[in-house]
């Protein structure tokens, strides 16, 4: 595709005009924010591309209200800088897929919400969708629609906000997002427990989450991956990492309690704020599997106690490397060769359910293997009906989530 095929609307009305035009002409559109996740999902087959890169700008931000509104194409970096200037942040700690996917460019805030990108703090503070308060979007017929608003609590009508979050541009083109922000924690530390195997780590993380210490990150890195994070400073076997954040006196109290509990399970060290920050950024961005390799990478979401069982079962059948976030419930798998989609999904079902998403693979594999978890028939039909109510002619991102949609 050449550059001429990309349209760069600068207003919501222009977006609406472009989509309405495509809809009338029976054409399809690939919707793009910063373009850093283009190789995530199925390859889109479209006549043209609509980039939101020029629909930018923070439209409303009063730090004392803990709410920000921004046009969808606003770079995430600009959002985070504006928040940092007021000592605030996005609570859901959005993952940056660039290292893993080898992508360049700047992620946009619209893209973050369209993909529901969350990070380690999700276990305490919720996902991107939990922070999203309101959206404006253009549906597949070119209508401008709003849902939600800029207040913290809102049950007025159907919550289309949640539906749009994580819909990968298949239901509407986000034009503006309004989201909750929070003060940055005054301090953060990480408690590192060494030497636990995957099963012991799952138990330790569950025990930590059962304590009233507000763990804001719970990850386990097997020995095979520790040299890939935090500049290779972690050594000597697997590590289980628990993060505490908040007011300094409170973090001190909680650190003491958590260290006492974890010391019964393994050797414990405490990382200060700076070291903790680097380590969690690397976990968030799947650094262990980043690089030039195109080995298939899966993102698996299961019940926290099922994560290590899945990996143990897979190891008996195939070559796989893995690490865990979200108390063990978010499993990142790097396959030695074949993506093994069928095997992975069969084991997930057997372990009580969840889903697997093929995050990285060659375009050929992504076109032939279902990238997103196939749904049971009734839900698949419902999904189809919902899509039809937003985008009846299938203008937006055809094929991105499933082959037929």
């Amino acid at each position, binding site marked *: 595709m050449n550059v001429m095929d990309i349209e760069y609307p600068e207003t919501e009305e222009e977006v609406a005009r472009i989509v309405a035009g495509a809809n009338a002409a029976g054409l399809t559109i690939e919707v793009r924010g910063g373009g850093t996740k283009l190789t995530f999902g199925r390859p889109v087959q479209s006549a043209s591309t609509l980039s939101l890169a020029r629909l930018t700008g923070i439209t409303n931000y009063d730090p004392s209200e803990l709410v920000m509104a921004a046009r969808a194409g606003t770079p995430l970096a600009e959002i985070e800088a504006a928040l940092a200037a007021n000592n605030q942040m996005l609570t859901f700690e959005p993952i940056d897929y660039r290292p893993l996917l080898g992508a360049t460019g700047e992620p946009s805030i619209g893209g973050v919400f369209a993909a529901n990108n969350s990070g380690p703090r999700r276990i305490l503070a919720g996902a991107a969708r939990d922070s999203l308060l309101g959206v404006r979007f253009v549906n597949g017929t070119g209508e401008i629609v709003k849902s939600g608003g800029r207040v913290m609590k809102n049950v007025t009508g159907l919550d289309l906000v949640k539906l749009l979050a994580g819909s990968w541009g298949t239901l509407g083109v986000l034009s503006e997002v309004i989201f909750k922000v929070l003060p940055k924690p005054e301090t953060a530390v990480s408690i590192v427990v060494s030497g636990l195997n995957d099963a012991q780590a799952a138990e330790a993380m569950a025990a930590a989450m059962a304590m009233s210490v507000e763990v804001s990150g719970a990850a386990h890195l097997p020995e095979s991956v520790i040299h890939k994070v935090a500049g290779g400073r972690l050594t000597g076997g697997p590590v289980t990492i628990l993060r505490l954040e908040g007011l300094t006196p409170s973090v001190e109290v909680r650190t003491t309690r958590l260290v006492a509990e974890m010391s019964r399970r393994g050797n414990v060290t405490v990382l200060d704020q700076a070291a903790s920050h680097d380590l969690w950024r690397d976990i968030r961005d799947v650094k262990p599997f980043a690089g030039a390799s195109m080995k298939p990478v899966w993102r698996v979401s299961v019940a926290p106690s099922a994560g290590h069982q899945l990996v143990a079962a897979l190891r008996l059948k195939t070559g796989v490397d893995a690490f865990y976030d979200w108390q063990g419930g978010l499993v990142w798998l790097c396959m030695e060769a074949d993506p093994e989609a069928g095997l992975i999904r069969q084991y997930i079902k057997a372990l009580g359910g969840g889903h697997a998403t093929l995050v990285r693979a060659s375009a050929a594999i992504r076109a032939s293997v279902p990238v997103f978890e196939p749904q049971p028939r009734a839900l698949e039909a419902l999904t189809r009906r919902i899509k039809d109510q*937003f985008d009846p002619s299938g203008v937006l991102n055809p094929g991105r989530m499933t082959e037929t949609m």
Partner: protein
Amino acid sequence: MTDLIAFLEPDKAVMARRPAIIADLAGLLPESCLITDERELVPFDTDAFVSYRRMPLAVVLPETTAQVSAVLKYCNDNAIPVIPRGAGTSLSGGAIPQEDAIVIGVSKMNRILEMDFPNRAAVVQAGVTNISISQAVDADGFFYAPDPSSQLACTIGGNIGMNSGGAHCLKYGVTTNNLLGVRMVMFDGSIVDIGGKALDSAGYDLLGLICGSEGQLGIVTEATVRLIAKPEGARPVLFGFDSSETAGACVTDIIGSGIIPVAIEFMDKPAIEICEAFAHAGYPMDVEALLIVEVEGSDAEMDAMLERIIAIARKHGVKTIRESQSALEAALIWKGRKSAFGATGRIADYICMDGTVPLGQLSYVLAKTSEITDRYGLRVANVFHAGDGNMHPLILFDANDPEESRKAEMAGNDILKLCVDAGGCLTGEHGVGIEKRDLMRHQYSDADLGQQMRVRAAFDPKWILNPSKVFPLDGRNGSQPGNQSARKTAA
């Protein structure tokens, strides 16, 4: 009782078939699950929005998902409206029936099916009360966070229907942030499982859509909810102020300073008097506005947090500060707050508004609220979740006086419009129901509502599920599936 709010015209043909319908229902579930006697139907003719009452055709109280499925399929096949019901505590009329409808109540499905502590999840049936989840997991050091004031009675099914909040959702979020999965019966009787013990689910966020859909997308029969480790301790502190404005400014400052307490509740003088007379909670009586700020954690943590909050309150000229000294005192403070609606009900009839406004607009909206109720010659008591801007003005009136009842409803509508115009919304946690249905166009454009209604139709093609609620009765045709052509033409 007033008649400002219309219901859909009941289908006379359905009503005429009542004996046959009852006979059919009797074939679908045990006799003990079917209520048809006129006197026994009375408790189901309204919910906590008592100004409106409609007698249903019949009530069924299924014991299993399969029974819900059978009844719903039957109703869909025969185009009989269905009103899902939890405990009937809706403040917006979400569970009020209509004359041609079958009420499907989930109250008999009240078992906790599983408590899974390693995965911090509980699987419960929809008729389980909100409080019973926390009670069941308490000994193991957990709780379920959303805590609507009606938590002793309200069901988790109703909470999901309305996306219920509560005083403590400032820190822990509302139902949608604490729900992991549901088992739901669809319009045609098919049973779907959405989500589970994993933190997110595949495909579109159907769970987020279902939460707060007011029983219009299906009937939830089971839920998987997130459990949270119980804090070591919690301490509510009372802060008394000379004016609502300074109390409001103090709230904004606390939040803006980076401290998020578990709860910040606001009461104005009328509310303080009503609640104190009922609960004897020891609220200060010589102040114009009261904040209940609750912090939690270990003693050291609470001390540290309170020190900062108190410093901010002093900056705003706080008049009295009282820390609870014991668990008993803390419980009393919350008893006063949580019984605010009930206590108000002892002295007058009331309707409770639920608009949410941006924090910076709190003082303005409070002042304007008083102007509105003054204009109608009515009294108002304000008691609400200040930390997230969720207002609850209680408009007091005499239900035996039709004129005053109408005035109260009109004042309520004016207040809700005020909330929307101040950048907020019609309802923060009580739902639209019938109460705010006709104000929806004040908040949403036709395109906004049209999109919502089309999504609704994807779940319930014949609009049999709670059909009189949420969406204005006029202007529905263009979005109903019988009229696909209108949409296609517009496209």
